[in-house]
Every structure is written in structure tokens, then in C-alpha cells.
């Protein structure tokens, strides 16, 4: 089926089979391999992307269902000017070990912080509860997202 969608601000087209998931379409057809596939049945959260402003698991929807939508993947966050604020906060907090789960965590946290810029630790833990890290690095991931939220709040109070 022919589809057209926006990915990271660019119009992209393709002809995926109906059974192809959005995750496979992004990786195989658009060569955006930053979106990782862990379990491929909606348990691990590694393939999380932002679809029309909300975090979704790209292995749990068909590519053809994303026709006409706006998709943001991990490749869409950093600019030529450098890392985004959440990425920087996670970098500063050593939020990565092997890095496999990182794109999913970053996309989930990006969607969550844009809706809840001043979230507290408990809210962040709940928001990230659907993402699995097998290096057991959860604490530093939470620390990174919390640091991004604190910087958001400081920015807001400076204004």
C-alpha cells in the first residue's frame, strides 16, 4: 500500500506491505535505525516513537496506519546545534549503560515532559514504567529525566 507521512519534519513515502509494523518501516524502508526493536510484541518499550504528539509503541501499529501522521523518532531530537535539553540532562546524569533501551526511554520521556514539564520523581517513574532496561540502570535514567524537569522549572521561573 502506498503511504505518505511526515517523519522528523520531512515528508516521506513508501509502499509497505499491510503486515509491516511502523517500527520495521522506519528501520528498513526509511533507514532510521535509531528506533530499536527489543521484544517486538509491545512489552519492552524500546521502539517507542512520538505519533501526532503522543508516545506510542511502533511495533504495535502497522505502517499503513501512520499514513498522514506526524512521526518523531530519536533521530528527530538532536539538531545541528547539539543535543536537546532532555538528551543533555540524561547525558549529564550518565543515564545510559549499553544504550539499547535508550531511544525508547528518551522518546517516552520527551512525550511525557512536553505534557508535564515540571513532573516529580514519582510521576516520572510511572510514566517510564512501560520501558525495560536490562542493564538495571533505572535510577540514573530517572535522575536524567528528573534533571530535565528541574531545568524546565528553573527556566519557567526565570521568565
Amino acid at each position, binding site marked *: 500500500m502506498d503511504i505518505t507521512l511526515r517523519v522528523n519534519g520531512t515528508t516521506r513515502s513508501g509502499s509497505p506491505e499491510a*503486515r509491516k509494523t511502523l517500527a520495521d518501516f522506519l528501520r528498513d524502508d526509511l533507514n532510521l535505525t535509531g528506533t530499536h526493536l527489543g521484544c517486538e510484541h*509491545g512489552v519492552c518499550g524500546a521502539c517507542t516513537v512520538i505519533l501526532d504528539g503522543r508516545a506510542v*509503541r511502533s511495533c504495535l501499529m502497522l505502517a499503513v496506519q501512520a499514513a498522514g501522521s506526524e512521526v518523531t523518532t530519536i533521530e528527530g531530537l538532536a539538531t545541528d546545534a547539539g543535543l536537546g535539553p532532555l538528551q543533555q540532562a540524561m547525558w549529564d546524569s550518565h543515564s545510559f549503560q549499553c544504550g539499547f533501551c535508550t531511544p525508547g526511554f528518551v522518546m517516552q520521556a520527551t512525550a511525557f515532559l512536553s505534557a508535564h514539564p515540571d513532573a516529580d520523581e514519582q510521576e516520572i517513574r510511572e510514566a517510564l514504567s*512501560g520501558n525495560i532496561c536490562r542493564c538495571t540502570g533505572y535510577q540514573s535514567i530517572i535522575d536524567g529525566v528528573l534533571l530535565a524537569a528541574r531545568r524546565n522549572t528553573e527556566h519557567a521561573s526565570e521568565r
Partner: protein
Amino acid sequence: MKLPQVDYEAPRTVEEAVDLLAEHGDDASVLAGGQSLIPLLALRLAQPAVLIDINGVDELSGVSVADGWVRIGAMTREYVAEESGTIAGSVPLLAAALPLIGHEAIRSRGTIGGSLAHADPAAELPAVARALDAEFVVRGRSGERVVPAAEWFEGYLMTSRAPDELLSEVRFPAAGPGTGTSFQEVARRHGDFAIVGLAASLTLSDGVIADARLAFAGISDVPVRAAGAEDVLAGERPSAGLFDEAARRATDGIDPPADLHGSSEYRKKIAAALVRRGLRAAADNADERQ
């Protein structure tokens, strides 16, 4: 795990969807939010010949109120229901259960109708529908029929929807004055399926329980009403002793399944604890709403 070969149809109206179901019947699966169906396809537990994707059927989404019932279109996404002021105000038990469904990214796609048509007995929404005696509107070529919740859930992942019918709407009765509700569950981790869950609703009138509703998730192959406990509660004043008695009656004779998350006996103990907690919380917020 890639999905099996499958044909794909994307109807734009209920009529088109129903025609496709009539044509394909048992060979078709209806694709709503896909948060249960896509994993079933990936694991080859479901291998339909055709997917009928109803995401483009706009008339199936929305929340409205009529004649004391809150009507929720089957394709209404869980996060939309979670943010609905109508649901928060009129169906507080549903509002309490929604944030417990899966994780945030699941609720971005998952739908009210999808969860209730999938009918996982450990899920939150089936217990809520059963507790409140929700009504299920299904559409087929010969028209519409309304199925009460007591007749909807037939077994593990089985409902009374016929293969050529589409679940189009679910209706929940609006809570009256003096109604307090609570959804309780024990899960290994926030967002996981409940080991046991409980939907509880109490309506107080002059300090006396006029209506009590309790339904369990996770103790059988369907959501289960605790009718014995409801009888014990009716006509009484809320008290810790009464809630203890209700917990005993609710768990008398139940035989929950055992799996690696918990033995049958453990589930039974959780069930009793949830009845006490749920009734206490429901009674407290019933006082607030009076």
C-alpha cells in the same frame, strides 16, 4: 517476530465495516487500537486472513450523555477517555480504572471497545463494565442489538459478539448522588496486568448502603460479580466489621487460577484485602459526593 501475511481493509463507515465482517466472518479480525491484537499476530496466536481496521471510522469515537447513560464509542482511545470531564464526573469508577490500564504509550492507542471486545479477564475495563452493568451495542447487517454486561463475557477472550457483528458503543450508567467508587489492584509493577483487581461502587442514602457493586478481575476466565457480598452490604451502614464480612462472603467459594505470579490461595487473600480496601475507599468518597 514479524506479523503473518494478512489482507487489510480500512472501512470509513460502520456500514462498510459491517459489510466486510459479513463477507469474511470468522476469517476476519477487527483492528482497533491493536495493543492486544498486534502482539497476538506477532506470536501467531491469531492468524486472521484479513484485518478490518476501524481506526478510520470516525463515527465510532466520542463520549456523549443521554438519558442517564454515558455512551462511549468503541474506537474512543483510552487516553481520550482518561482526559474526559464527562467520564470523570459521571462514571468515576471508569475514570479510576483508566490510568491503571497498561502504560502511557499503550493508552495512546488502546481503545475502550477494543479492551472490552478482547475480554481479557485480568484487565480493568471488563471488571468495571460488569460492576456497573454496562450495555454493549453491537451492529450487524440485520441491525443493532444491545447486550447487558452479564451476557457479554462468555469465557477467556470470548464474548457474545457474533463473528459478523461489530461492537460500536458501550454505555455506562451515570453515577447518582451519594455514589462512591474505587478501583483496586495488586500488580507486580505499575501498568502490568493485575494479579487481582476489584471494581467497587457504593451508593449511600441517609448513611445507609442503598446499592453495592463489586466485580473482580483476575480470579476467573471472566470478570466476576461478588453477589453474596453485595447482599451483605445492602441496607447496612458502612463499618469495618461489615466490610470484613463482605470480604469473607466475596471470597467464599472462589477458586482463582494459579500461575507464576501467584498461587490460587495467594490470589484469594489479595481478593479479600482488595474488598476491604475498595469498600473503605468507596465509602469515603461517597461521603464526599453526597
